[in-house]
């Protein structure tokens, strides 16, 4: 009787693992055969050409998102860990969870209404990056908070006993110890931003050209857009580009995730062991 139950639970794992492996296999296989040198040297031309504009566009959007989200998230996380025991801290912690649960398309539409139309930024890098930043700030705040709360309190007390100020204790004693955890959060935020589509469709737009450095009034291309829109075109060249883009996205996301996991396991052996 017990044997059947174990078999069923193992089967459940197989039911989940097989599609995942098939997803990876399909994307890597079809994507790899669509890879070519010109993907990295040419821009998209209608439904053919290369992906240079989309690759650089994704990197610009993600870099912009992290530039905004990391400072805010880290500062918020420090506040929650060091001074967040009261009612305000509990409220922010809850709202942090709520924000991670808000569907990304809602964030995208919010930005469309406020930034793209309201402020007249049109489809632009800043609108796209800001939307991604709102999306990933809660993750960075949470990881920062956890990293800081794992710094032993006697180290802080030792700092105060030496007459250091609060600022110095936090930045010179706690921050270096919390840094790997913060980095893990930032990497995770990067992985999430790399793979997002819905918040960008109506904020970043799409462009066949390379980014010209303008923050507003200028749309920008990105890889996930290629996956979503080119697979619907009835042309082989469009499908090849979609799979090549998916290959690059999956590769970037997986590498970032593996780096984050390795960092987490290495810095918190106790937690990883469970």
């Amino acid at each position: 009787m017990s044997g059947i139950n174990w078999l069923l639970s193992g089967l459940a794992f197989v039911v989940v693992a097989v599609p995942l492996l098939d997803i990876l296999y399909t994307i890597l296989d079809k994507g790899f055969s669509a890879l070519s040198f010109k993907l990295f040297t040419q821009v998209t031309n209608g439904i053919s050409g290369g992906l240079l504009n989309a690759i650089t566009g994704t990197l610009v959007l993600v870099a912009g998102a992290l530039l905004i989200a990391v400072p805010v998230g880290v500062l918020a996380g420090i506040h929650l860990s060091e001074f967040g025991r009261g009612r305000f801290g509990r409220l922010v912690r809850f709202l942090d969870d709520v924000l991670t649960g808000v569907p990304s398309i809602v964030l995208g539409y919010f930005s469309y209404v406020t930034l793209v139309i309201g402020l007249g930024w049109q489809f632009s890098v800043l609108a796209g990056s800001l939307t991604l930043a709102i999306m990933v700030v809660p993750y960075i705040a949470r990881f920062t908070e956890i990293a800081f709360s794992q710094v032993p309190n006697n180290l802080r007390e030792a700092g105060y006993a030496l007459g250091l100020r609060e600022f110095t204790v936090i930045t010179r004693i706690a921050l270096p110890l919390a840094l790997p955890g913060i980095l893990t959060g930032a990497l995770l935020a990067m992985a999430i931003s790399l793979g997002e589509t819905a918040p960008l469709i109506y904020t970043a737009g799409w462009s066949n050209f390379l980014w010209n450095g303008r923050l507003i009034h200028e749309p920008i291309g990105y890889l996930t857009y290629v996956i979503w829109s080119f697979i619907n075109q009835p042309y082989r060249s469009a499908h090849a580009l979609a799979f090549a883009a998916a290959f690059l996205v999956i590769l970037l996301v997986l590498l970032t995730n593996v780096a984050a996991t390795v960092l987490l396991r290495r810095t918190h052996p106790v937690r990883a062991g469970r």
Partner: protein
Amino acid sequence: MRLRPFRMVLLLATSLIPLALAAIFVFLVRYSWPAIHFNGVDFLGGHTWSLGNLYANPVERHGQQVPIGADYGILVFIVGTLSTSAIALALAIPVSLGVAIFLAEGLNARLRPVLSFIVELLAAVPSVVYGLWGYSVLTPLIAHDIGPALRDSLGRFIPFFGGPIGSGYGLLAASLVLALMVVPIIAATVRDGLARVPAETKEAAYALGATHFEVVRRAMLPMVRSNIIGACILGLGRALGETMAVLMVSGGALNYFPDNVYSPVTTMASFIVSQLDSALQDPTGMAVRSLAEIALILFIIAVITNMLARFLTGSSRNVSSV
């Protein structure tokens, strides 16, 4: 009191999180306000979404300028959202529990991190990649293999599984993709909960003569019941708001209720993406504002599911489930 610039900066950054949420709510309400007025409760109960005649002069109805014949009802998309999420959760919950038990108790310590990582990868795959896989692998499979097999077995007894199978895009494809996306959320939380059950509890159950699986079933699972419920609600929230993957495999039904499990459907989230382009053609802007009303409803649903999850879990947030 001494001014503390460092603390002020921290506080300022922290308050951006509640501010962002408040801004989302306020601006969505403000932008969709004319639509809320115009649509009234019919918005939730109406069967038809029609932009009306965009070429004729707009008329005034309920004090708002709208195109002639414009009608914004989202019941079809509500049904699409609820049905895909319900089927997805019905599939994902038992599978997730099996996966969690397998990972927490059914493996030796060496294999556990490796196989756990596979499930964690599932959570890392971007939704548009799920969509691509669903589009190129799953929907043909449903059209040619899964669909006919279901129709010839379950379909004999349950009409909902019978009838025309169509192209493979539809309710079943969307539900299967959503189920795959929800499993890692539930499985990871339950696995972490199981791993935290004290050894004394397990030993006590063993001492009463329970087999290993009985220990899991009778002693461990009841202890993590609240984790399971909380995780399921978070999974539901994820499924209700998922956009890209559903958009790419659901077939995009308009003004059409699903009559079997293979019918095309549209969810509220995917509808926003698929319709904004055409809504922008509306010179009165009422269509775009009605889409904002859908986004507002999704936002409220997200807040409610998170509050429910928090309330039912009872504890403060689960640190290791991030």
